[in-house]
C-alpha cells in the first residue's frame, strides 16, 4: 500500500523539479486570443497551398504547439460563439435564436450563470478581457443613472451595470462590438472616444501591459481573454501595415492581427511566463464577405481553405476555425489533432485543468484536455451542434454532418431563398471523403440522417447535450427546421 506520506513526498519532489514560478501545472496562466472573422484559410500554416497571407507568428505558435484541424465555433457569427465560449452552453438555448446583439440591452449571460472567467476567479485567478464583448450590456446616463435608450449613443462617463466586470472579469478594456468600436470602456465606464484605426494597436498595447503587470505578482495565475476586433470590419490596418500583404486591406489587417499575436507571445517570453501559460489562438467564425472573398480568390487566396462557404453559413467555412494550443510541458510541439471539438468546450477543459469537474451548468461543454496529451476525448455528448446566422441547425457526429437547410443557411449562394425548387430539404455529407460538402447523401443514407436528426433533436429538447442534472432552455419553442418550405417535410 502506498502511504499518503510517500505520495506527498513524491509530489513535493516532483514540483521542485518542474517550475520555479508560481503558476503551476494545475493552475497555469491562460491566454485566449479570439480573432474576429478570421477564416481557417487565412492562417498560412493551415492552408499552405492556397493561403497567400503571411502569418509568421501564428505559424510559430503551431510549430510550438498543437493544431486542431476539426475545431468549430459554437456558431457561424460573433455573439453566439462568444456566449458559448464563455459559458460552455450553446447560445441558441437563450433568447437569441438568430443573428447577433447590438448593445443597449440586458446582458445575454444571465447574472447567475458562471462564466469561464468566474470559474477561474473562484480558483484564485486574476481575470481580464481586452477587446470586444458583443454579448449585450446597458449604458447608464452618468448624471441621472437612467438606462440609455438603444437609439442614442453612449457618452464618455456612461456607466455599465451588467458588463464583463459583472460576469467574472476583474478588468475590462475594450468596446461592445464593431458598430461601437470607437466607445472605449474600461471596467464599467466609457472612458474615451477612439478612432477605429487605433483600436488594434490599443488592444495590443494593453495586452502587453497586462502581461507585464501580472508578471510582477507571479504568485497569482491569470486568465487573459483577448477577443480582438480584427480582421472584422471596419478593416483598418495601421499605416505601417497598409500594402504589406499585397492582397489589399484585408490581407494587411490579417498580417497586423498576426503581429499582435507576436506581441503577446513576445511579452510572455520576455517575462518568463511562456512555459507555464496555456495559450489558445482561435477565431469566432469564418471569414466575412466584407473581406472581399472573391477578389482574394482571384489572387489565389482561399479564405476557407478547402472548406465550403464562409462566415454566417452552415457549411464548414462558416464555423471550422483555426485552433492552436501552446502549452509547454503538456502539449507536444509541432503536433496536430483531428478530434472534433468546439469553442464551447473551453469551459469544461479549463475546469478539468484546474481540478474541478465542470459544473453542471456548462451543459454542452466537454473537456478536450486528453486531446492535448494525444489521448481520446471521453464524452457523453454524441455530436456537436452548428448554428448559422439565420438559426439553421447542423449536426456533426463522427464523419457525418447533417444540415437542416437547403442552401448555405447563411450568406453564401445559394441562400435559402435562392435554392432550386427541387432542392432537398436537408444536406448530409461524409466529411472524411467530401470535406468540401459537394456530394449530398441525404437521400442515399436516410438511416444516417435519421440518427443524426434524432440526436440533434434530443440535444435541443433535453436542455443539455452532456449527461448531468436536468437543465432547461431559456425559451420554450426552439424551431428545429428554419426554412419554412421544409417544415413538416421530414
Amino acid at each position: 500500500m502506498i502511504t499518503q506520506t510517500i505520495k506527498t513526498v513524491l509530489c513535493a519532489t516532483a514540483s521542485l523539479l518542474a517550475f520555479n514560478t508560481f503558476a503551476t501545472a494545475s493552475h497555469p496562466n491562460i491566454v485566449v486570443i479570439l480573432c474576429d472573422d478570421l477564416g481557417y484559410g487565412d492562417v498560412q500554416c493551415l492552408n499552405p497551398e492556397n493561403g497567400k497571407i503571411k502569418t509568421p507568428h501564428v505559424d510559430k505558435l503551431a510549430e510550438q504547439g498543437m493544431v486542431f484541424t476539426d475545431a468549430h465555433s459554437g456558431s457561424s457569427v460573433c455573439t453566439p460563439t462568444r456566449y458559448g465560449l464563455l459559458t460552455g452552453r450553446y447560445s441558441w438555448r437563450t433568447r437569441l435564436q438568430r443573428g447577433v446583439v447590438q448593445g443597449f440591452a440586458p446582458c445575454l449571460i444571465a447574472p447567475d450563470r458562471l462564466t469561464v472567467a468566474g470559474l477561474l476567479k473562484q480558483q484564485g485567478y486574476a481575470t481580464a478581457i481586452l477587446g470586444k464583448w458583443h454579448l449585450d450590456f446597458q449604458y447608464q446616463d452618468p448624471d441621472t443613472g437612467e438606462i440609455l435608450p438603444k437609439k442614442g449613443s453612449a457618452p464618455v462617463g456612461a456607466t455599465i451595470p451588467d458588463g464583463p466586470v459583472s460576469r467574472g472579469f476583474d478588468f475590462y478594456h475594450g468596446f461592445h462590438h464593431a458598430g461601437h468600436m470607437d466607445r472605449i470602456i474600461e471596467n464599467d465606464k466609457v472612458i474615451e472616444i477612439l478612432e477605429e484605426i487605433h483600436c488594434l494597436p490599443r488592444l495590443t498595447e494593453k495586452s502587453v501591459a497586462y502581461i507585464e503587470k501580472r508578471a510582477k505578482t507571479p504568485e497569482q495565475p491569470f486568465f487573459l481573454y483577448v477577443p480582438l476586433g480584427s480582421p472584422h470590419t471596419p478593416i483598418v490596418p495601421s499605416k505601417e501595415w497598409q500594402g504589406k500583404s499585397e492582397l489589399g486591406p484585408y490581407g494587411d489587417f490579417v498580417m497586423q492581427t498576426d503581429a499582435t499575436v507576436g506581441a503577446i507571445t513576445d511579452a510572455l517570453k520576455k517575462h518568463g511566463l511562456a512555459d507555464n501559460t496555456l495559450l489558445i489562438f482561435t477565431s469566432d467564425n469564418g471569414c466575412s464577405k466584407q473581406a472581399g472573398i472573391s477578389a482574394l480568390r482571384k489572387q489565389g487566396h482561399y479564405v476557407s481553405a478547402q472548406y465550403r462557404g464562409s462566415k454566417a453559413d452552415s457549411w464548414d467555412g462558416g464555423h471550422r476555425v483555426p485552433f492552436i494550443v501552446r502549452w509547454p510541458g503538456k502539449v507536444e510541439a509541432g503536433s496536430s489533432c483531428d478530434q472534433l471539438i468546439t469553442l464551447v468546450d473551453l469551459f469544461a477543459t479549463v475546469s478539468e485543468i484546474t481540478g474541478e469537474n465542470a459544473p453542471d451548468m456548462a451543459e454542452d461543454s466537454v473537456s478536450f484536455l486528453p486531446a492535448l496529451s494525444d489521448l481520446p476525448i471521453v464524452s457523453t455528448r454524441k455530436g456537436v451542434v452548428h448554428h448559422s446566422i439565420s438559426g439553421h441547425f447542423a449536426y456533426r457526429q463522427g464523419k457525418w454532418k447533417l444540415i437542416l437547410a437547403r442552401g448555405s443557411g447563411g450568406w453564401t449562394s445559394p441562400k435559402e431563398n435562392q435554392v432550386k425548387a427541387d432542392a432537398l430539404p436537408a444536406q448530409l455529407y461524409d466529411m472524411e471523403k467530401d470535406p468540401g460538402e459537394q456530394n449530398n447523401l441525404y437521400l442515399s443514407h436516410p438511416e444516417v440522417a435519421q440518427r443524426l436528426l434524432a440526436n440533434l433533436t434530443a440535444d435541443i429538447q433535453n436542455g443539455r447535450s452532456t449527461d448531468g442534472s436536468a437543465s432547461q432552455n431559456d425559451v420554450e419553442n426552439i424551431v428545429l427546421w428554419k426554412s419554412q418550405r421544409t417544415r413538416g417535410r421530414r
Partner: protein
Amino acid sequence: MTITNAVRGAFAAMMLLGAMITGGCTSMTAGESTGMAAEKADSQPNILYIMVDDLGKEWVSCYGAEDIQTPNIDALAAGGMKFHNAYSMPQCTPTRTTLLTGKYPWRTGYVNHWDVPRWGVAYFDWKQKENTTFARLMKDMGYATFAAGKWQINDFRIEPQAMKKHGFDDWAMWTGYETDNPPSDKRYQDPYINTPEGSKTYKGQFGPDIYVGRLIQFMRTHKDKPMCLYFPMALTHIPLVATPDEPNARSPLDRHKAMVRYTDKLVGQLVDALDELGIRERTIVVFTTDNGTAGKITGTLNGHKVKGAKAQESEAGVCAPFIVNCPGLVPAGVETEALTDFTDMLPTFVELGGGELPEGLIIDGTSIAPLILGKEKDSKRKWIMALGFGRARLTEDGVRGAKVFATRVIRDKRYKVWVSNDREIVRFHDLREDPWEANNLLSSERAEHTKAVRKFQKVVDALPEKDAYPLYEPRAANRWDQKVRGNKKR
C-alpha cells in the same frame, strides 16, 4: 496490492497459453541455438541495430522510393541482404517492446501505444523477468551494450537508471516528452537527453548529431570488445524540422525530405566510423524502421503513390525496410523474400553472440542468424504477424489494451489475412497479385485460397482469446499521471 496479484494472475494464464502455442508454431528452444556458447570475444560479431522512427519503404530509394535518394542506405543493401518481407509492428510502443523482448504485443500486453513519460502510470518494468531485453542477455554474454535515440517506455525522472536496469552499459536517449517538464519536448534542436549522468538540455546542438556522436564515441572506447549497439534514432518522427544541412527547408514535405536525407547521412557516418575503427568486417549492421511513415506524408514507391501508413496494418504500415550488412559475414547483393518479424531479433542476436536463451524464457521469434550469415537460404518462419496501434486504455486496474483482443495481420510470402477484434479473419489478400490490398478474396473458393485461409485460421485458433496486460509493479502516483476517466466525466 490486489492489483499486482490480479495482473500477475492474468499474466500467468497468458504464459501457459503462450507456451502451448509456441510449442506448436515457431518458438526457438534453447537446444536449437548454436553451440558456440560464449566462447571467445573475437568470435562474437558486433551488432548495430539502426531503427528509424516513422519511415516506410516509400522513402528508401533502394526499395523503389522515387521522391528521395538515400545513397548510404542503398549502399548497405547493395553490399548486404535486402529483405522484402520483414514485419515491424504498426506503432512505436508495440514495436519497441516486441523488439526488446522477442514477444508479440499480445504476450507483453503492449498491444497499444502508451507514451510513458507523457501519460505515466504504466512503465516497462525491468523487475518482471518476462520483460527481459536482448540487451540484458547480450550483456550476460560479455557484450558491451549501448543505446541512443528514443526509448519512451520508462520515465527517467522516476528512474534515471532505467536504461542500465534494462541492460545497457551506456546510453544517450531523448527522454520522451515528460509532462510538466517543458524542455523535454525537444529531441532535435536543443535536445533534452538522458545519459548515465542524468537528463539535461544540450543547448545549441542538434539531437541527431549527439546520438550518433555518443554512439561513435562508445564504439571507439569499446572496439576491442564485442558490442551490441541499439540505435532507435529520433529521426524522422514529427515535429518536422529543418536540419543543419538544409536550414531553409520550410514546407512540411521539404522538411520531411531534409530529415530523411539527414538520416541517410548519419547512416553513412556510422559506416565510415566502423571502417575507420577497423571493425566493419565484424559488425553486423541492420537498418530498419519502427513502422510506416506519418499519415500526412505521401511518397512514391515504384510509381505508386503511398500515403504514410503509421498505425495501420497495411503493408505500408508494417512491412518495414530491413537491410542487413556485414562484408565478410553477410552475403552481398542478396535480395530475399524470407519471412521475419521483430520477435526474431532477440533470438537472432543471442545466436550471433554464441549464447543460449535462458531456460524458461518464452519468446515468439526464431533466430534468422543462419539466413543472414549465408548458411541457410531461408528463415524458419512459416508466417509473420503484426499488431498493436492506437492508444491504450487506462482503467482503475491499470493500463489495458483498448480491446480485449487487438486486430492483427498475419502473412506468408504470398497471402495475408486481417483478423478482427472478434478474432475472426475478415480480409484475405493475395499480395503477389494485389500488393496494395484492394481485393478481399475471403469469399474465393479457389483451392489454393481456401487452403491458405485454413492455414492462417490454425494460427489464429492457437492465439489466446484475450491479450495480456502490460506487466508492471504499481508505483506511487505522480501528478502527471493520466486520470482514469469514468462515467462521471462528460
